[in-house]
């Protein structure tokens, strides 16, 4: 306790030098916490959106289905087992049929995907009820706002779609954009038109066929009971986690540099302190303090920079983080950056993140404080009293 009191006294007595180090260290604290909170927020946001809009309780994929392989997509459909059909009938699962198609609009053409789902389904957040209510002469589809922006299609626009049906025959028809909706999940938006599953089966001549099934959350289905392959939320998060992990390499470099900056300031301050305070060290020895205790005192003095930095960081960080966590940060470039987002990112400041960062910074600061303080252990009291530089 005495050592602690002395360390605090010495630290505060050092004035501006202490506060400069403390402020720099507090920047390390807050920036590390902020960036990690952003990653946490990004991951949680993505997880929530994926579960809400795409994955729900997991998906069952046709064995041939690979969303990234256009060559196999034509063959990745079949009629599902009776057990799954019962689940679909009981609104426990949602069938989705996927087919490649060419869109012709505004004098241009582009290749994309037709996806058919039951318009009234409630398993994922995909508001297609407008399709069921449609009373026009064309085939109603819903597109995402990203697709609308990219193709120039607006609500009420007509465009032609060509596809290859089950008999390997090209067919085409006129479609109408019944609604443009905002989709937070760009994977459901980019190059995709959404239509009624029954209508799509009819167009493709694939009655009862399915490409994949989305299971309701907390479903009781035995994932091994069908030839379809089960994909859980972890599978869908893999890409996101890899992207975050790749980005974190850069972030960790920044954290490292920040920590080095803070540590160098404290290291420099400790070296100077021991150099300038030799006479004081000698006096402490003469008064009966052991060298080990003096080493502890100086190490604690250095280490306490991190405690003060925590308070200073909390002073400006708490209101700032509270503001960001409640208001969010706008990221209009989410889709371009490959981020599944609502457009606003809400950093998540968990206790694990805050305490983990505290321990990391305190640990590094204590180590850099100890390294110069070790010299005291070999210092002769008489030399120290003379303030002799060795």
């Amino acid at each position: 306790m005495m050592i602690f009191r002395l360390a605090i006294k010495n630290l505060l007595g050092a004035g501006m030098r202490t506060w400069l180090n403390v402020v720099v260290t507090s920047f390390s604290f807050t920036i590390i916490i902020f960036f990690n909170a952003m990653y946490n927020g990004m991951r949680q946001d993505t997880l929530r959106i994926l579960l809400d809009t795409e994955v729900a309780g997991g998906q069952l994929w046709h064995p041939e289905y690979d969303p990234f392989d256009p060559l196999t997509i034509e063959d990745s459909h079949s009629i599902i087992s009776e057990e799954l059909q019962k689940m679909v009938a009981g609104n426990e699962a949602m069938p989705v049929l996927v087919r490649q198609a060419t869109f012709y609009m505004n004098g241009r053409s582009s290749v994309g995907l037709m996806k058919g789902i039951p318009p009234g389904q409630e398993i994922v957040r995909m508001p297609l009820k407008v399709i069921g209510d449609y009373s026009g002469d064309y085939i109603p589809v819903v597109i995402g706002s990203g697709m609308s922006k990219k193709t120039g299609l607006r609500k009420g626009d007509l465009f032609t779609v060509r596809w290859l049906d089950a008999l390997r025959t090209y067919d085409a028809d006129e479609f109408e954009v019944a609604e443009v909706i905002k989709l937070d999940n760009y994977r459901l938006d980019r190059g995709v038109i959404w239509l009624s599953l029954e209508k799509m089966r009819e167009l493709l001549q694939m009655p009862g066929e399915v490409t994949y099934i989305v299971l309701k959350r907390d479903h009781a289905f035995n994932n091994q009971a069908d030839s379809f392959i089960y994909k859980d939320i972890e599978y869908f998060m893999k890409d996101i986690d890899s992207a975050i992990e790749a980005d974190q390499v850069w972030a960790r470099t920044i954290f490292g540099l920040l920590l080095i900056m803070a540590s160098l300031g404290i290291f420099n301050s400790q070296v100077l302190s021991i150099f300038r305070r030799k006479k004081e060290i000698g006096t402490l020895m003469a008064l009966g303090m052991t060298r080990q205790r003096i080493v502890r005192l100086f190490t604690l003095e250095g280490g306490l920079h991190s405690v003060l930095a925590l308070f200073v960081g909390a002073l400006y960080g708490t209101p700032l983080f509270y503001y960001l966590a409640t208001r969010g940060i706008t990221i209009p470039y989410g889709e371009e950056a490959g981020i599944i987002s609502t457009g606003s990112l809400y950093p998540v400041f968990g206790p694990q993140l805050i305490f983990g960062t505290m321990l990391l910074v305190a640990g590094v600061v204590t180590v850099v404080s100890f390294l110069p303080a070790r010299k005291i252990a070999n210092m002769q009291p008489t030399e120290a009293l003379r303030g002799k530089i060795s």
Partner: protein
Amino acid sequence: MGKIVVEVKGLIKDFPIADRLFRALKGITINIAEGEFMGIVGPSGSGKTTLLNIIGGLDSPTEGTVSVLGLSLIGKSNKELADLRKNGIGFIFQGYNLLPVYTVYENVEFPLLLLNVDSNKRDKMVREAIEWVDLSDKIKSKPAQLSGGESQRVAIARSIVKRPPLVIADELTANLDAKNSHRIMKILLGLNKEIGTTFIFATHDEKVMGYLSRIISIVDGKIESDKFFDRNELREKV
């Protein structure tokens, strides 16, 4: 002669200088009794400070034996020597060596904190020591706000606050004017009389010598003379 508190026999101290050894003390033998108010005098470089440092456990002898307060200092660990200083010895330095960020009170309190004296007793002892040196009005001042004389009085209060059996003072008046030097010596003589502490001074200041009841003169690392004086009249005055 009372109980011996410092016993030095055949003390030799060598210092390496470049590739040679310089012999600072050449076979010193002295005994200092409890309650003595004595000084080691001699010109600069004669070995006074080296002898005091060895007696204070701040340095170790090359040869010979040193016993302080009944403890032989030969072969003792740093911790044992630190314990001896903490419990039994008070130091007064030429440059005061006050801890700059502490107030007068905290500087004086420091040795008692090391001894884990409980707070009520500590407060009483600190205030008493500050009163002895007549600095009660400066209790909250920092060393930078004090004059040289006041700083040295704080150093004295710090050295005697734990009532050590032995106080070692190295050139304590070197930075002080005549008035302050006399004032400080009178304070120390009073303490010697009041609490019976043994004082050993290293000095070449004649004002200090006038107060000492024993003067050992060292020249070139050897004892040249060892004289006792009757200062009873002076002690009575103080």
